[in-house]
């Protein structure tokens, strides 16, 4: 026995079917079409739609954390206060001597006519979220195309490079960390000038490839960006060599510890000079 829907119900059913089919086609198209920067549209739309929620949750989480730290976690506050007073006094003395050293440094720089690279335009950003799976090594920033951020912009901290922008929405962007298994950076060993290609391993450490087995690379050597990948400017710190041995092939097996603390980054700089041109 079939049940006949009331006319109004049948009409609603038709409209629901129409909406469902139209949305299906839109999603299907957005999975296939790329925007001029090469990004799949649906990924860009999802990032655009999700950015306000990511920022909101990040703000709430940060607020709760600050409340916890400032008002709840007061264990041993009096003793710590006294200890910190002593430390502050000691640090003030150190700061005065460092200030004198800084001023001397400044004078010497002027004397040597040392010129800094003033062409690096940058913008500050905060990390608002990380990809849920720990292995993907992707973080999300609160800056996007409206701030001049484009794909392939380098992301750095004062300690060293962090990664590059792989997808930018209007007010947020997705950054691939240098520890990501698909990441690669053109590098050079500072001490010897030997060039190589640094790759992420998916873990916390990095690996350098294409350095000959006979090249001089020692544990403790500082690794800098070479600028050859046209993403990271030349001379930025990448990390330190923690392992260097002759491998089974003609190349050395070199492992590097990142200079920047990629597990705890919170604020970064996005270098706007590099990256894909605006559409």
């Amino acid at each position, binding site marked *: 026995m079939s049940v006949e829907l009331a006319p109004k119900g049948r009409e609603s*059913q038709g409209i629901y079917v129409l909406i469902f089919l139209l949305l299906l086609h839109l999603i*299907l198209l957005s999975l296939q079409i790329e925007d001029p920067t090469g990004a799949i*549209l649906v990924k860009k739309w999802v990032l655009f739609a999700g950015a306000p929620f990511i920022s909101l949750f990040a703000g709430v989480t940060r607020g709760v954390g600050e409340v916890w730290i400032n008002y709840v976690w007061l264990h041993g506050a009096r003793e710590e206060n006294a200890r910190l007073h002593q430390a502050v006094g000691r640090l003030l003395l150190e700061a005065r001597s460092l200030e004198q050293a800084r001023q001397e440094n400044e004078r010497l720089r002027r004397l040597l006519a040392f010129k800094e690279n003033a062409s690096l335009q940058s913008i500050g950003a905060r990390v608002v979220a990380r990809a849920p799976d720990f292995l993907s090594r992707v973080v999300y920033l609160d800056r996007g195309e409206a701030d001049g951020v484009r794909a392939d912009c380098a992301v750095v901290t004062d300690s060293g490079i962090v990664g590059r922008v792989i997808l930018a929405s209007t007010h947020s962007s997705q950054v691939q960390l240098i520890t990501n298994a698909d990441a690669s950076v053109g590098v050079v060993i500072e001490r010897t000038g030997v060039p190589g290609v640094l790759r992420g391993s998916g873990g916390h450490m990095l690996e350098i490839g294409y350095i000959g087995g006979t090249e001089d690379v020692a544990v403790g050597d500082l690794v800098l960006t070479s600028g050859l990948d046209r993403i990271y400017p030349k001379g930025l710190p990448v990390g330190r060599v923690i392992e260097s041995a002759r491998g089974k092939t003609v190349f050395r097996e070199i492992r590097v510890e990142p200079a920047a603390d990629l597990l705890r980054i919170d604020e970064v700089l996005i270098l706007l000079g590099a990256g894909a041109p605006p559409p």
Partner: protein
Amino acid sequence: MKVLFIAGSSFVAVVAQMIAGNSFFIFNFLDLSLILVAYWAIYRHRTQALFVGSTVGLLQDALLGWPLGYNGFGKTIAAFVIGQAAKRFNIEGPWIRFALISAASFLNALSMLLLFLLLQRNVSVIFVGASLMQSIITGGGGVLLFIALDAYKRTHTDKVS
């Protein structure tokens, strides 16, 4: 069986247009698949016509090498418009059917144009003119086919009675 029939008739409509269009220029402007959608919306089931429009549109996209979804989107809208008009108005007359099918065909083209713009693709001005011509020819072709269909049904009914 109905699903197979929908899929099969959609495929035949699209392929027939492609083959006929290769030999006769006018078939490049006669949208047989839209006429199939109109037939389903007027003569059979309005909600099923939405699925017919979606299916035939996806098939068209696949055979033309387009990203899947452009024609399906437009023909689904066309099916909805024809179905709603058939429900609310008396569309027995040839001129009203011509206007309805032409308007649905143009609406199909317009929705595809909007999709092109929304999804950041380039659009040629020729597209608008060609769409207008296609609307008129499809409307005319659809009316003729439906007149023939109605005549066949009347003849068949008379024979049975």
